[in-house]
């Protein structure tokens, strides 16, 4: 960890002003990812601007029936917030599937979006990594890549985004409220994270010096037919091999609307509109789900160690859709898969 200056932001405007005045400053809120990376010298900010005391900790209903979630609401508070548990249980499930309760108590909602990959080469400064050091090469392409991407990867980077929460936020059409030197703007969640292309050092489409102030959820929470299923190498406290968020609106025995997104498979939370469209109007059965899963994985590409994830993702997609349709969402504590 290198020497850095520390300062506290007094309000959002001050935070933006402070970060714009420094060349390599970072915001810190929960710190669960940033301090980890600073200890390994992967992140080397010369200034940390502490935003943890900013008044962005409210969860409020919006005029159109949605929810406005302050960027600093801790993950655990969000998971157990009555409005979330009641109207957006998919979000609650996903949060509870990630990390540990201690980390969820610390981590902020906004920070969750900005988690960096767990790719081992990104963390190990003794190895090349385009994300950490652009142009140095991707070691995972020919290395330990069991956890890596099967969708949307590039020759420059096959890392995956590690968040659980984000998988559900993209599925639910959330919006990201940000503030920056040029003012405030709203980014559709779908456009928030980037694919690696040849700029894998950029995880998101945030502009320099922007700060996330809130996440907005639309009114529709799919509280009746949803499930978040996370498949991992041990039964808790592990990153996803594959995770699936599924949400259905059923009417008259048919799917009126479907949402489907995957985690652990790509550089960003992976939503597949084509699969959702294919489900629309269908009877919620194995045939329809298998077709949707095929669409999800149509362009999947595996590498020697992670080829299994393609079939796993397919099966997990079908299973999660089945859970959602039956109204038997995967519970966070019982490890038997419903």
């Amino acid at each position, binding site marked *: *960890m*290198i*020497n850095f200056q520390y300062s506290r932001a007094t309000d959002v405007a001050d935070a933006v002003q402070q970060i714009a005045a420094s060349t390599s400053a970072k915001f810190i809120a929960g710190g669960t990812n940033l301090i980890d990376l600073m*200890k390994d*010298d992967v992140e080397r900010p010369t200034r940390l601007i502490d935003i943890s005391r900013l008044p962005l900790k409210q969860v409020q209903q919006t005029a159109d029936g949605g929810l406005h979630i302050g960027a600093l609401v801790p993950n655990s508070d969000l998971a157990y917030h009555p409005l979330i548990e009641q109207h957006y249980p998919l979000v609650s499930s996903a949060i509870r599937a990630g990390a540990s309760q201690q980390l969820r108590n610390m981590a902020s909602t906004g920070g969750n979006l900005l988690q960096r990959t*767990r790719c*081992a*080469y990104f963390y*190990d400064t*003794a*190895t090349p990594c385009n994300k950490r050091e652009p142009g140095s090469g991707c*070691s995972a392409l*020919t*290395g*330990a890549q*069991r*956890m890596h991407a099967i969708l949307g990867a590039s020759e420059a980077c096959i890392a995956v985004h590690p968040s659980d929460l984000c998988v559900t936020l993209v599925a639910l059409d959330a919006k990201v409220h940000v503030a920056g030197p040029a003012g405030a703007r709203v980014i559709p969640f779908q456009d928030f994270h980037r694919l690696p292309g040849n700029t894998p050092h950029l995880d998101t489409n945030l502009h320099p010096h922007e700060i996330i102030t809130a996440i907005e959820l639309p009114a529709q929470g799919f509280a009746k037919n949803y499930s978040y299923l996370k*498949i991992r*190498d*041990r*039964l*808790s*406290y*592990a*990153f996803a*091999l594959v995770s699936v968020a599924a949400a259905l609106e059923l009417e008259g025995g048919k799917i009126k609307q479907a949402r489907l997104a995957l985690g652990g498979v790509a550089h960003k939370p992976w939503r597949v509109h084509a699969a959702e469209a294919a489900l629309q109007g269908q009877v919620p059965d194995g045939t329809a789900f298998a077709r949707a899963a095929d669409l999800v994985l149509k362009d999947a590409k595996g590498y020697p160690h992670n080829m*299994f*994830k393609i*079939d*796993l993702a397919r*099966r*997990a997609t*079908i*299973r999660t859709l089945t859970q959602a349709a039956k109204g038997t969402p995967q519970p966070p*504590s019982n*490890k*038997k*898969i*419903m």
Partner: protein
Amino acid sequence: MTAYIGTPASRIDGRAKVTGEARYAADFNEQNLVYGAVVASTIPKGRIKHIDVSQALRVAGVLKVLTHQDRPQMAADDDAYKDDVAPEEGSPYRPLYDDKILFNGQPLALVLADDWETARFAATLVQVDYDAAPYVTDLQAQLSTAYVVPKPEKPRGDAAKAYAAAQVRHEAEYFIPTEYHNPMELFASTVHVDGAGKLTVYDKTQGVQNVQGYLSKIFAGSVQEFRVISPFVGGAFGAGLRPQYQVVLTVLGALALDRSVRLVLTRQQMYALGYRPATIERLALGANADGTLAAINHEAIAVTSQFEEFSRNDTGWSGLLYKSPNTKFVHKLVRLDVPTSSDMRAPGAATGVYALESAMDELAVALDIDPLELRLRCYSDRDQNENLPYTSKALHECYRQGADAFGWSQRNPKPRSMRDGADLVGWGMATGVWEALQMPVAARIVLTANGHAEVSCAASDIGTGTYTIVAQVAADKLGLPIENISVKLADSTLPQAPVEGGSWMAASASHAVASVADDIRDELLKLAKAVSGSPLAGAAGADVTLAGGRLVSRKDAGRAMSISDLMRHGGLDRMTKEKLNTFAQDHSHARNTHSAIYAEVKVDEQLGVIRVTRVVSAVAAGRILNPKTAGSQVMGSVVGGIGMALHEEAVYDHAFGRIMNANVAEYHMPVNADVHDIKVIFVDEPDDQVNPLGIKGVGEIGIVGVAAAIANAVYHATGKRVRDLPITLDKLKA
């Protein structure tokens, strides 16, 4: 008198551990302590061409940077670096000694600073210019270089021929990857400079006297006296048997600055210490149609370093456990550019018996015999290798009681036949075996006239419960309430003890305490006889016992004198006895512990997610001193076995010769959610031959066979035999 032995007494160090008062190696604070940080090699092999510490030295608060070019003097001969449990063959690694790089993560410099954060920062500024050399880190790619290491187990008959002629054959290769002990405590040392050439070393170790002897040899020229202390050890599982490099570096720092120094390794740096070697196990079992064995061929190929030859007994267990007229064992090693492999919980047996018991399961399938029934048909009442009877062997009872508790008779033998909704249910079993070892240990008892005793010994308690069983034995032998016993352990100035390992400490320390307690009794008897009109006048040592704070005649409980009276008569306020206990060498019997493990797994049929829902471990290990702490040891071993079966693997990238999951997030060990119902049964196994108290030890036996039982259960559930650990869900679909 056994008021405490055999009872589930709570740990006497429990309060210290739940309140945070228990101090571990990195917890001994001092004003003006200097903190160290290690600069580790990022290549596996080569030389340091140049090391530039100038930028690190510029950092405010940095006091010194030690390198092989700039460090206090160290011994120059291999012998100095050979600790008590170093492999016989080879040249031990010498920390910070010269420019040679022998493995990735090797310490190349030690930055010393006023605080940890400064040292850590400055360490990133040390520039190392390498002269990299070609290296090998891949066992599979180096199999052609495997060479045979001799092992004591003799072949019987002609195993190759018998295998070829056998009615039913099973041959397969099993693989155990590199595994790390990963005790929760980071390896650490705090060295306090006491002045006058004396250093007190608080070290994370399983053997304070081993470290003391090791440091004394390395620094013979510069340090007059080392005292090594390790009252609490945050887990070790074998990782702390040999002195680790951080203790040498910490001493170097203290000598260089003449100040007290602390060095705590990072979790990543601990992956450059010892590990359970990746091992290939090849089994070829030949059977007769009736389920008796005709041939056992067992070959193991394991990893060691280029500079030391570490190996344990992987193969001999096969010939020991089961009756077979023909056996052949081969143990091979492959040298790689990695640190030397090391003992890790049940070394040799955890790996070798995993393979054996997996192969026996496969043989049972081939024979269409119940796996338990096959073990019974191959059961042997004698050590087959040595053709010796056992001091005791209650394995039959383990099989029976374990099967009953588990409900084994309800098992449908057909794979994929048992279900629970979307889950396939699998039941598997395996046998475990370990040695009942015992070592010379000395103990001291200081008995005070008020009926309190302090028992001391250099032995460690690495979480095994040594403090507690020592107190139990002492309380019983001295006839005092356990609250009146205090125990001091793990200080190199205390009476002699070897490293705590191999499951030998319970038996060894107990007998040391019992033996010196007898001396106390005899001394008290002398005092009693000196009292005029003594009620114990004619008694010999064996005629009296200590009970209820008194010396009592065994024949006539009415004839007794209280300890306080005796000591008053003798004009003593305290009595000190110390004795080294050794065990009679008796080669007429085999001494082993045994177990039967039954495991239930549930596997999601579509997704392959595996859960270990139930484990029953029935253990025969002689007299159990404390079923509470011993039960915890076996339960914890089962958890370790779950990790071995399903989770644990150090993932190498051979392109860099580096471990890519050198942490505890991706080197998966079981977490709470992975562990469900574990039942531990200790079967009755009276044994007056193994040693007077009938103790065999339980530290290793609990893990042996667990991975096989789980692997066999996974096969039974899914019909898929996975022979390379860990069994991750992708292997079920492959």
